[in-house]
């Protein structure tokens, strides 16, 4: 096809694109994938029976705010990287804020408990499963983001994959809070973060292949 014909064909399909479409598309991918993850939790793991009571306590919100803040920072970075002329982003330094806050709470925990309880507190009841569940639950959200990117134009594919994986992992962990009944800051800091990092790693690994256009 010659270029003039191509332009004429493209010109027959010019739907309006509102301001903020890129942002809405990324968030749409996350929400769509997140609903699938939520259904998976409901069907296979089950929501914690004391969810309502837990929501009146400190531990639940500590976990939730930790994962949700990481998720928001990662989503912001993903939105930036969806533009072709994205400059390297320093946004991810913000991640230090939730991490250091949670580490501070962890040190407080250690000070309160005798040393013989430390290991049990750190490993909780689900350390072997937690990172893998977070990683598994992040997959629908990551796939949702791949859908978002079909009309966007990332040019740093590995960084974009990592940011999308981080966003998917942290969003999955935020939903996983509705199942998990661990209460220790050190547990969350280690095993939740490990699951989120695994998701970011998978994203960085597959980004150049799946985000290519």
């Amino acid at each position: 096809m010659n270029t003039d014909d191509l332009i004429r064909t493209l010109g027959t399909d010019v739907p309006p694109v509102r301001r903020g479409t890129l942002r809405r598309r990324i968030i749409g991918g996350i929400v769509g994938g997140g609903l699938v993850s939520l259904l998976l939790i409901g069907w296979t793991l089950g929501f914690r029976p004391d969810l309502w009571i837990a929501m009146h306590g400190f531990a639940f919100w500590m976990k939730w705010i930790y994962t949700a803040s990481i998720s928001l920072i990662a989503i912001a970075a993903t939105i930036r990287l969806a533009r072709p002329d994205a400059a390297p982003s320093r946004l991810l330094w913000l991640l230090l804020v939730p991490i250091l806050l949670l580490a501070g709470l962890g040190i407080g925990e250690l000070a309160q408990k005798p040393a013989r309880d430390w290991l049990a507190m750190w490993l909780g009841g689900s350390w072997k499963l937690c990172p893998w569940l977070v990683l598994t639950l992040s997959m629908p959200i990551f796939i949702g983001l791949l859908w978002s990117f079909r009309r966007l134009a990332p040019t740093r594919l590995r960084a974009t994959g990592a940011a999308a994986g981080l966003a998917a992992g942290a969003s999955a962990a935020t939903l996983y809070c509705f199942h998990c009944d661990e209460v220790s800051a050190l547990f969350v800091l280690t095993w939740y973060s490990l699951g989120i990092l695994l998701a970011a790693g998978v994203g960085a690994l597959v980004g150049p292949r799946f985000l290519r256009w």
Partner: protein
Amino acid sequence: MQLSEEQLRAWMTAGLDGDAAAHIALLRALAPMLRNFYRRRLRGAEDDIEDLVQETLIAVHTRRASYDRDRPFVAWLYAIARYRMIDHLRRQRVSVPVEALDEILVSEGFEDAASARVDVARLLAGLSPKQARAIRDTHIEGLSIAEAAAAARIGESDVKISVHRGMKALAARIRGVRP
């Protein structure tokens, strides 16, 4: 004829609002720009170049949601063109260095868009007048140290120190300005 950033951006914005005629005008204007862009950088067959032009036009069309109306249009365009070119080279398994986006914007005649990314004037305004003048004279106007010293009626070592301190402050500021 070189079209201006303003004209291209106006067409792009109208296209985003659903104006098909503006969108077609934009794509028609982009085709020769992209042809020049690829010809200058790839000494390949004309067929390859026309394929790349078409692929880029399709990307501009299907991925226009990735354009931010508040940012320079040509930076967005050449970022897409650069990506398509790298992808093309990768498919052919050749590796050649490709200029950074800022250099592309300058070599394609859009210095404004390039400098909009780092606004020199705004950065200099944050320095002391002496440092700003020393840097502007020696690094932008191209005066020698001696000429700059005579023009500002200060010593040569004073100019050198002002440039040095000012550059240091600028470097620190750029690190802070770029989010």
